[in-house]
């Protein structure tokens, strides 16, 4: 199996309101095509770990290597480019840009990447929306969609640049059970198609469907 993500000896401290050792010597390796669930109690550090892996948080000790690139120590500009190209991110709150239509939201990261022409980006965005069953809402203002619909659009957006890793922070945390079920299925299907997925969840049903469950307790990985 080829390794796509490798985190070694990660340490992370919070200084506010008081000094706190959030992650204590965490090492993690994820293979291509694997679906990994990070679980743990609230405050265990699982979300913090995900934000370190996503390169958004750079204030840590240890090293992270993704797709044979050592991302630790890269400049902010290089990290922005890396995220844009290689990482898709889904948040707990759906977070679409409310002034833009659904399809424009999905297109945004691809337009930033600038690899394809505008027409190609649009057809790719429609394709991803179809995958999520959201293609009929393409021209609607994103603010008009329900929470579950918004989350599906957000997943389509995360996939637009064909990222090497899809990261999700509590993707069902803010959804009812019917919508959660839809999002589970989407992740399962994406995993079957060979996408690498790392998700943080405290939903045991969701976690159970992953290839591997990594439990974090008090900033350490339990084996």
């Amino acid at each position, binding site marked *: 199996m080829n390794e796509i993500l490798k985190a070694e000896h990660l340490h992370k401290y919070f200084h506010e309101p008081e000094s706190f050792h959030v992650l204590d010597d965490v090492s993690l390796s994820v293979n291509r095509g694997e679906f990994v669930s990070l679980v743990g109690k609230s405050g265990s550090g699982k*979300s913090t770990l995900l*934000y370190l892996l996503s390169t958004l948080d750079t204030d840590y000790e240890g090293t992270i290597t993704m797709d044979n690139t050592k991302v630790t120590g890269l400049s*902010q500009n290089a990290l922005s480019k890396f995220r844009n190209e290689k990482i898709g991110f889904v948040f707990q709150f759906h977070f*679409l840009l409310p*002034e833009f239509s659904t399809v424009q939201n999905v297109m*945004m990261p691809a337009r*930033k990447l600038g690899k394809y022409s*505008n027409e190609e980006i649009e057809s790719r965005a429609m394709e991803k929306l179809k995958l999520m069953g959201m293609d009929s809402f393409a021209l609607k203002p994103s603010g008009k969609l329900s929470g579950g619909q918004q989350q599906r659009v957000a997943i389509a957006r995360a996939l637009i640049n064909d990222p090497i890793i899809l990261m999700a*922070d509590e993707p069902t945390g803010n959804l009812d059970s019917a919508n959660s079920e839809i999002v589970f299925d989407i992740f399962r299907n994406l995993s079957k198609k060979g996408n690498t997925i790392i998700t943080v969840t405290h939903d045991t049903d969701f976690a159970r469907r992953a290839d591997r469950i990594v439990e974090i307790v008090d900033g350490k990985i339990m084996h």
Partner: protein
Amino acid sequence: MKLPVNLDISKTHLLSRKKQTLVAVLGVTFGIAMFILMISFMQGVNKFLEDTMLQATPDVHIYNDLKTDYSVSIASEYFKGENKLIVVHHPKPKQVKLNIKNAEAIIADIKRNPQVAAVAPLLSTQVFYNYGPVQINGFIEGVNIIEETRLYNLNEKMLFGKTENLLTTDNGILMGSGLAQKLNVRTGDLVSLATPMGSTMRFRIVGIFKIGIGTLDNVKSYVNLSSVQQLLGKDKSYITDINVKLKDNKMAVAMSKEFGKKYGSKAEDWETSNSSVTAGNTVRNVLTFVVSITLLVVAGFGIYNIMNMTIANKMKDIAILKAQGFARKDIVQIFLSQSLVIGLLGALSGIFLGFILSYGLSRVPFPSNEFIGLKYFPVIFNPKHYIFGIVFGVITTFIAGFMPSLKASRIDPVAILRG
């Protein structure tokens, strides 16, 4: 043609809150419009004053200053000796000759200077104008009317008669319009002039001029140089002043120094003789810029405020964009371009509004006044002011937008996304 993604986001932000954008644009519009109006008007006033001033002032004026040096006395020469202190208490002024020595030669020499456009000799004296029982105090200038016309464009200022009439008439006089009105005289009438020394002469009015400055039109007349020499009982070479017109009046300061040194008389440039006017110009310019900058700073704070509010509302959006791979410079670009669009729109509509207001003001009749010959409010239209307005507006909004944009780019996405 589709806009680049950053500018597309910026455009969407601006259009999704049209009212706020409009208010910000209007702030800049009024700032720039007021700047254009004020500077056009103030510069118009400056130009008007300078023009009228130059109509009555030579570029360089050469004359002998009355010397008031009483420190040297002949008494100290006479009583000189050791251990003596000679003090002359409260001496009376000496009789001094104010005429310029060898004036003819000086005039001929100045004429040869390539920088000089015209040279005119002058001899003036105070007089009483007598017509019937009316007596009015004023002065006459004895001139070579052909040279004088070249100096001040007198032909354009004649209400009645021609300047050349002075040459064809024995003892002719060209009278200021205000003076002629007070005496109730017209061309062809005879007036009697009396000097402070008591001599009198009769002159026939051959023309009436109006310079447009009340303080001159009410007291001044032109006669031939020889008439004044005769009236004062002086010889043909007696001239007290030489007036010079230069091809470029900006050279006046340098030329007056040169003339002063060369001919041993006092030479004064027009800026010095009208220092109150030039000081007034400076005051008006400073005032214009202070008021305009204040207006623009206020508009700038308006934009700063609006941008800060926008960014506070868009924290989540900024965090998402950053998570999607938008770099700090992209965020700066998104918000700074909004500010610049506001600035550019404001500046363009501002110069347009400014032009309309200035044009309107230039059509407002100036309250009629016997001292100033002005029909409408003086306004000038100078493209430089409009270009300056645009540049100024854009720079202000750039500064006002830059700080909030930088702040936006520094937002830590993790703190916001984790909720």
